[in-house]
């Protein structure tokens, strides 16, 4: 676990436990809160008591949310998140000091709020970023006349940690897709000296966003990450491995088109381009829309949206094992090159042999003995 302490308490701040009690939440209510929160963070139920004692002591952090080259889908995903009671308790408890889509203030006042938060909580605030950062030309995306790059650098400087929400912030996402006209890059390509948690997805599952925030709030640390900066708790498992259609894959039963018998019977979508085997996300377990379903359950192959470069994975509907690019053309060239080179080589060989045959000196019995016959 990345050990950064979110000691963002202002002296007068109360802990989360105190806050809940002052809201008139009973002890049973607190237990319910802890159980659902642990579940939200994808922690095993055995961790509920640990969560309870941590939540009891959790302090109110300051949060700054920056949005760059993005579509607001991530924010939409979060604000449409279903578990309003619990989330609101948590979000009530954080101090969202800057979020230019959600905040009422605008213009100079908004920027002033950001600067104030940065100044007051220097070294302690949490920075959330959605959207990628254009490096091609600073003018491609600016906020209050400040380029995304400058704003990120400036705001990251005093942050305790950064959460990159959505595939754009985490890996460049759609703006980064070939040919990447804006020179879009991820947060981690610019900021290298701060702990960064990537919460990719297009958008990320809402409870995954809140789960990560809750983790930070609860334990004051960033969760354990995988090799590309994603929390193991949510991105530790492979979609394909956890897919309820996996047994069809193993039995070799595939939907070949979107309206064939296999599709109707809910067979594996591998051949339709499912990126489940290379995708790590919580979709198969957490699901979407209040746990109703997830794309594969709805009959659509996984796009792999939580993976870097998923836009460029050779096509959403192209089977994972199929080569991308100009494979068949390459084979065509191969045949042509091989035929030409083969012909040249063969003719060379034949001419050597022909030369040898025309230079053939008849061998007689007198020509056999090395040592003797002079």
């Amino acid at each position: 676990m990345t050990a950064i302490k979110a000691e963002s308490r202002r002296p007068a701040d109360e802990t989360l436990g105190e806050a809940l009690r002052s809201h008139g939440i009973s002890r049973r209510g607190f237990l319910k809160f802890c159980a659902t929160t642990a579940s939200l963070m994808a922690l095993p139920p055995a961790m509920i008591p640990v969560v309870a004692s941590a939540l009891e002591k959790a302090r109110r952090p300051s949060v700054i949310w920056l949005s760059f080259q993005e579509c607001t889908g991530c924010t939409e995903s979060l604000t449409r998140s279903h578990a309003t009671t619990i989330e609101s308790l948590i979000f009530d408890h954080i101090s969202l000091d800057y979020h230019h889509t959600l905040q009422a203030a605008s213009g100079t006042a908004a920027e002033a709020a950001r600067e104030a938060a940065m100044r007051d909580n220097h070294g302690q605030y949490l920075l959330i970023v959605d959207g990628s950062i254009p490096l091609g030309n600073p003018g491609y995306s600016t906020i209050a006349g400040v380029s995304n790059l400058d704003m990120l650098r400036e705001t990251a400087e005093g942050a305790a940690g950064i959460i990159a929400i959505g595939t754009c912030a985490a890996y460049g996402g759609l703006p980064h897709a070939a040919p990447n006209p804006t020179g879009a890059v991820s947060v981690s390509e610019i900021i290298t000296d701060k702990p960064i948690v990537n919460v990719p997805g297009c958008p990320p599952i809402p409870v995954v966003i809140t789960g990560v925030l809750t983790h930070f709030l609860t334990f004051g640390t960033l969760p354990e990450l995988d090799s590309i900066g994603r929390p193991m708790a949510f991105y530790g498992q492979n979609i394909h491995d956890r897919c309820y259609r996996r047994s069809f894959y193993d039995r070799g039963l595939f939907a070949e088109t979107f309206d064939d018998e296999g599709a109707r019977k809910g067979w594996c979508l591998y051949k339709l381009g499912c990126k489940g085997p290379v995708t790590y996300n919580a979709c198969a377990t957490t699901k979407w829309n209040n746990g109703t379903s997830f794309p594969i359950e709805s009959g659509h192959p996984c796009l792999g949206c939580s993976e870097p470069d998923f836009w460029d994975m050779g096509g959403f509907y192209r089977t994972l094992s199929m080569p991308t690019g100009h494979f068949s053309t390459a084979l065509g060239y191969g045949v042509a090159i091989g035929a030409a080179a083969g012909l040249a080589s063969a003719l060379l060989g034949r001419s050597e042999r022909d030369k040898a045959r025309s230079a053939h000196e008849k061998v007689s019995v007198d020509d056999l003995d090395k040592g003797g016959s002079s």
Partner: protein
Amino acid sequence: MTQPSLEKGVNILREQIDGPVAAFFSSCVHCGMCAEACLFYTETGDPKYTPIHKLEPMRRLWEREFTFAGRIKKWLGLAPPISDEELEQWQPVVYDSCTLCGRCSMVCPVGNDITYMIRRMREGMAASGNAPQGLIGATTRAVKLGSPMGVKLATLEAQARHVKISTGLDVPFDEEGAEYMVVLSSMEVVNYPEYLEAITRIFHEAGKRWTISTEAFEATNSGIQIGVSDIAAELVGRIVAAAEKLQVKTVITPECGHAYTALRWEGPNLIGRPFLFKVRHILEVLDDLREQGLLQTSGMENDRITFHDPCQLVRRGGVVDPPRNLLNMVSNNFVEMEDHGTMNWCCGAGGGVSANEAADEIRLKAFKRKKAQLESLEVETLVTACANCRIQLEEGIEENEMEIPVVGITEMLAAHLVEHPSSDEGEQP
């Protein structure tokens, strides 16, 4: 007169590379199964006798000069040329321990005809002066004296007189328009004259006109064994000239394996044109006579007998059924060896090995395979159809203190021949 040279050898080796050779070298995966099929490996356990390994210098030449990657290797200095020392070093495995028996070619899982390549490899070996002395001597005698053993016409004429004395029948020489022209191996003339008497009687009974050419009675072809096509062609040419001069329909090769290969299969390719006559092995002719009812026998051998398949006749020649048909005519106790027919084990002396003193030791070692085969069968008589095999078998049997007589099929048949009264002597030898 020129000297053999590496340059000449390599040049001739280059001439030998063709599609099959390239396909065979490309396909070898070094699985070692050819070794398990080669009696020189099985009887010595020495991996250097692995058939495909015997071709290493030729493989290197092919790779260097006939493959794209090999040319690059050569250009980078990674594929050194063949040296005379290397060829000299390879002489024992290419000549002494290969009888061209072709058993390896039968088992190779990728289908390599290794024997086909060794035959070709010997062309380069001989032209570079790396053929064994014994074979050079035999070849020289074949070309200069007309027989590798130095047998002259006078000897044959003497044998013909013996036949006349014992059977009252004439051995016809130089008869134009005869149906058959018989050629003989020197060994038959010197060591096994029974053969000449047997065919004289059989053809007489069958009422066939046959003849022997005084200009070309020698069937063996050392050129094939040493691997000099120029010489082989010259030797074949003598028979072709005689047969065409006498206008015979068929030339009959004797109980000799490689003579059959030389005349029947290599012959037309050596002289560069199809023959105007047919070439048949004596067993094929006898089997035809049997079918036509022109070969009648009486009585049966009761001895437990088996047949040793001469490699060049059976595996490399395609004469598989005739010996069996003929043996079953005169034997009611004919048993097959465990590996027989096209999978038979060589006697150990073919392909020029018997003419090569350097191979004497290993030749007798290789016989152990045949010895084991014979012992497991417990036969009383061993029949074969190749004088060269027969000498090796007799020598091996004697060396190993076994007591099994070796006979040729033709003489065995003649012993049971039903002879009609027109002939005065009804007595059998």
